[in-house]
C-alpha cells in the first residue's frame, strides 16, 4: 500500500516514478513528485522505486499566468 495525495493505493509499490505517473496518464512534465517529504528530482524518475508505506504527494501545475 502506498498513500498517494492522502489516499491509499494498492499495487503501486515496486513501480518506478515514471511507471507510476505513466499508468495514471499524468502529465509528467507538469508534476513535481514529493516522496516521504522529499522532492524527487526529475532525472531520478526512471530509477526511483516506490516501496510499501511510502507517502507520495503529487504537486500538479496547470497553464495560465504569464
Amino acid at each position, binding site marked *: 500500500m502506498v498513500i498517494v495525495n492522502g489516499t491509499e493505493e494498492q499495487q503501486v509499490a515496486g513501480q518506478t516514478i515514471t511507471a507510476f505517473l505513466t499508468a495514471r496518464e499524468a*502529465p509528467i*512534465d*507538469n*508534476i*513535481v513528485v*514529493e516522496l516521504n*517529504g522529499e*522532492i524527487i*528530482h*526529475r532525472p531520478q524518475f526512471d530509477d526511483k522505486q516506490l516501496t510499501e508505506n511510502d507517502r507520495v*504527494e503529487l*504537486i*500538479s*501545475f*496547470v*497553464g*495560465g*499566468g*504569464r
Partner: protein
Amino acid sequence: MSETISAPTLQGLPLSDVYHGMKARNVKDSTERLTAAHVVIAGCGGLGTNIAIALTRIGVGHLTLIDFDSVELSNLNRQQFKLSQVGMPKVVAMKQNLQEFNPFVTIDTVQTEVTRDNIPDLFKDADIICEAFDNPAAKALLLDTVSDVFPDKPLVMGTGMAGVHSANTVTTKHPRPNLYIAGDGESKGAEGLMAPRVMVAAGHEANMITQLILGIHDL
C-alpha cells in the same frame, strides 16, 4: 560668491516628503523590512505584472523582473502594459511603468528564458522567489530546481486562474516548507485568461510575499 544647493524635489515637493508621504498608509513598522527585501519575479505577464505593481506600490526595495518575451496585443486584456508598449520587451516596459508608480524601488531586468542551467545564477540574490509563468512545465521545472539549489528560499507560485469562475475558489496553499501555491489548482489557460481572475491570483501571491517579508506566515 556662495552657491545655493537646492534640495532634490519630485513633483515640486522635497524628495523626503514624497518618500514618506507615499508610505503613510502602509501598515505600521513595515518600512524597514519592505525596503530591505529583494524579490525576484520569474515571468512578466498576467501574474508577474500585477504582482510587481503591488510590491512596487508598497515599497519593496528591490525587484528583479525576468521574462524573454515582448508585449503583444493579446496581453493587454490582463497584463499591466499599455497599448503604446506593444512590441517592447516586457521587462523593459514594466520597469518603465513601475518607476512611474514608485521611483524609490530598485528594479533590475533580465530578458531571458529561465532554464535549469541559469536558475542558480538568476535567483541567487533573491530573498523570496516569485513564480509567475504561464507554462505548467516551466512551473514544475522551477519548483524541482529551486527545491534542489535553494531549499531555504521561500518560493511563491501560482496555478489555476483561468476562465470565469468564483474568485473564492482561488486560495493560497502551503504544501511543504518554503512553498506557497496560489490559485484554484485546476482551471487551464485554454479557457481564456482575463484580468479580474488573474488579478485575484496575483493578489494572493503578492499578499503571501508581503506576509513573508513582514514575518507573518499564517495562511
